[in-house]
């Protein structure tokens, strides 16, 4: 079973409500789900869509061909009818679209009338539509009814009841009228409810699980979801979320809070990060741990605010004046987003450096089903010197020279020891200096000594597919899922494997796994990037001297889908 449902309509028509609800029903039923969204930078009107794929087998990407289209506007038909599979169906309300389509694939369902007749209200059309889809799929309604209960509880029993009736009406109408519907949803083996989570929530959840206590940011798509998630958890987990006056303030507040002794984070997009670059260098010079989530969207400048791109890798690698170590993680899935955010907090504090979570709009907005997350695998170690422990140390210098280059991070005020740091070059105590000797030792401390230790923390890239592949497709970050499905598809006929980097910088050692040799042994190596210049491929060359044989770039602001990627890869392989 592998169905794709697409809900299309104008901004503000509630396609997200329908999409989120259906995805939740499916995941509770025990299905595997993958969903992604496409929307414009406007609040009402235009044309957006929400695409959900469900299956009894794990999913990691979207497909182009669709089984059911819920058309809330005419564009949903004009733009997407061609994507319909042979037995696919388009459901719509002719009274709403003010148009009747008489093709067998179309099913006119009077969502509005159903809503009203069943004792509801016109605004419940989306409830009717959701019910209808479930009816077409031959699923039970129970999960949906539960969700209605949860969603509208605050609005009172009446509203809940009305919505339930409307849901039922839509459901039954579909069952009755979608005679030629041949869908049947099987939840698969262990059909217990699954976790359904999006990339941006996974980062937020990772922060909560890491003991993040302070988050300051300025709203910017696609990072705002992190702030919203953490804000919702403020009270329960003792987190202060502050909307800063600008991004410069956001990172400086984050640095301040971290200096004062709490785990701190900020998040933004490329354009907002551009304003944090000076603060990044401050964090590095003062050796203050910070975690920075950067959500990529197409640039330069404002670009495409709501669309996706992998355009900031090189920017992050070299951002900031002066020379200092940093770590860059680029999760490929919500699970990685969760665990890499957790590691980001651990490593930032362990080495007293800035650590980045580099994601993008596509990962931020796409939801995956997981069999759950394991709290016992969450890292939490407090590296700071606090309270009595701090009081007990004989003497303390914030930037003391040590073997490892790491000097203990004391919490100011917890002991009589002074915690002093400076954005100017400074001595062990943190006081401003001018002399060459101290400068040299400080650079060695901050950079030369820490770097080898940090490099050791970086995991090897992930390999999937054939072990002696003739073809290797390589990528990083959010292309993980689509590459994986492309490999599944292509392995049927070829010797192919994928190499995926989610731990990008410092670039992984080749000792544990010599990926350069691995690449050299393949006939063709294709570097796949959602950008125009091939930033990862440049990184690979700078670090290892290795140059890929082929490149696939996409820079139209849209993510890869399985079919398009497979097609492009085949195109290149044809050229062999």
């Amino acid at each position, binding site marked *: 079973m592998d169905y794709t449902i697409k809900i299309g309509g104008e901004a503000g028509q509630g396609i997200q409500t329908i999409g989120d609800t259906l995805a939740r029903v499916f*995941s509770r039923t025990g299905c595997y789900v993958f969903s992604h969204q496409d929307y414009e930078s406007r609040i009402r009107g235009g044309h957006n869509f929400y695409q959900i794929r469900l299956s009894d087998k794990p999913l990691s990407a979207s497909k182009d061909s669709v089984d059911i289209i819920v058309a809330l506007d005419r564009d949903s038909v004009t733009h997407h009818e061609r994507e319909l599979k042979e037995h696919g169906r388009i459901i719509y309300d002719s009274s709403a679209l003010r148009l009747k389509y008489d093709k067998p694939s179309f099913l006119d369902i009077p969502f509005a009338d159903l809503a009203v007749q069943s004792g509801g209200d016109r605004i419940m059309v989306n409830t009717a539509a959701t019910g209808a889809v479930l009816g077409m799929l031959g699923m039970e309604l129970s999960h949906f009814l539960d969700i209605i209960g949860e969603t509208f509880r605050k609005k009172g029993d009446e509203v809940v009841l009305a919505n339930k009736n409307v849901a039922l009406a839509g459901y039954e109408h579909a069952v009755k009228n979608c005679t030629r519907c041949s869908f049947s949803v099987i939840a698969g083996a262990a059909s217990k409810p699954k976790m359904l989570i999006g990339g941006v929530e996974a980062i937020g959840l990772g922060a909560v699980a890491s003991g993040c*206590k302070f988050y300051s940011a300025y709203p910017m798509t696609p990072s705002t979801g992190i702030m919203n998630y953490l804000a919702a958890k403020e009270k329960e987990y003792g987190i202060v979320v502050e909307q800063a006056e600008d991004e*410069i303030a956001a990172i400086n507040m984050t640095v*301040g*809070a971290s200096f004062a002794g709490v785990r701190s984070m900020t998040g933004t997009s490329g354009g907002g990060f551009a304003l944090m670059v000076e603060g990044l260098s401050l964090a590095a010079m003062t050796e203050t741990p910070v975690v920075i989530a950067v959500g990529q969207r197409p640039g330069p400048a404002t670009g495409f605010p709501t669309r996706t791109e992998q355009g900031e890798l090189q920017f992050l690698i070299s951002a900031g004046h002066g020379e200092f170590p940093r770590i860059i993680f680029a999760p490929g899935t919500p699970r990685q987003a969760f665990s890499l955010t957790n590691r980001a907090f651990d490593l930032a504090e362990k080495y007293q450096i800035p650590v980045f979570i580099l994601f993008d709009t596509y990962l931020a907005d796409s939801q995956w089903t997981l069999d759950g997350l394991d709290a016992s695998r969450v890292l939490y170690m407090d590296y700071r010197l606090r309270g009595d422990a701090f009081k007990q140390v004989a003497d303390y210098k914030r930037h003391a020279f040590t073997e490892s280059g790491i000097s203990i991070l004391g919490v100011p*005020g917890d002991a009589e020891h002074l915690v002093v740091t400076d954005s100017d070059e400074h001595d062990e105590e943190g*006081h401003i200096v001018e002399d060459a000797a101290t400068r040299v030792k400080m650079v060695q401390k901050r950079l030369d000594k820490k770097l080898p230790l940090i490099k050791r923390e970086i995991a090897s890239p992930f390999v999937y597919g054939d072990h002696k592949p003739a073809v290797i497709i390589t990528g990083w970050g959010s292309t993980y899922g689509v590459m994986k499905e492309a490999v599944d598809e292509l392995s049927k006929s070829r010797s192919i494997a994928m190499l995926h980097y989610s731990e990008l910088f410092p670039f992984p050692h080749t000792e544990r796994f010599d990926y350069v040799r691995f690449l050299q042994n393949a006939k063709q190596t294709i570097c796949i990037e959602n950008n125009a210049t091939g930033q990862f491929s440049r990184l690979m060359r700078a670090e290892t001297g290795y140059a890929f044989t082929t490149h696939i770039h996409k820079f139209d602001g849209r993510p890869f889908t399985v079919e398009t990627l497979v097609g492009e890869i085949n195109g290149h392989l044809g050229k062999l």
Partner: protein
Amino acid sequence: MVTLENYKGQVPAWCPGCGNFPILKSFKEVMVELGIEPHQFTVVSGIGQAAKLPHYTKCNTFNGLHGRTLPVATGIRLANHEMPVIIVTGDGDCYGEGGNHLMAAMRRNINVKLFVHDNQIYGLTKGQPSPTTGEGMVTKNMPFGVITEQFNPMALAVALDCSFAARGFAGDPDHLKSLMKEAINHKGFSLIDILQPCVTYNKVNTYDWYRQRVYHLESDYDPEDRKAAFSKALEWGKRIPIGVIYRNHRPTFEERLPMIAGKPLVHQAFDLTKIQTAFKGFY
């Protein structure tokens, strides 16, 4: 018992005769007289001559970037609102590069103490005009003189309902010390704009220039009358008032944050087991 000895720091790199010296001296004396120990508070400073002050005394110190003291101080306060935070900055640092943060901090009413060493010039970078530089002053990079209207920090403070706004003078240390104490004891964001002669680059606003003009606010002056305060704030020229220009008793930002009502964030333990509830939210 804390003494001036505890507040001894590096030898200042300031010019002989610089107005920063009496401010530094007042600062140390105030701390001693208030019985505050160096580890009990944090000084946040930016970049400039004034901003070097924490190195010339003893205290927890975050000497950050040019213009960015306020966000750093805000972060520190939100993480630990039991830690008094004093900001030492210059007119360029705070009113120039840092202007946006100044407005935001006044509006938030974050409980930090902002001491601005206002020498009406960029000292460390060798004499460019700052926002408080008087019109007409000629500098290397402004050969025809400054044509931007002089910034009035007191007027801004009244306009943005700053909780405590005062003007002091490096040449009147006793008065300055009383202002510092009042600011430190005031509950809310507190600004002291300190008139500080720069003997090297500001040949206009000298000790004499200030001495001829400054006067202590009348004893019957009421800093809590906002409209009167605005008129007073506009007074600059023949006579320059020093003292508390404006004051109110708005609740502080820290007081209004439910998450830290119990204890400071930095002293709230983290309980990993609670994460399960968050996990449940995704089913």
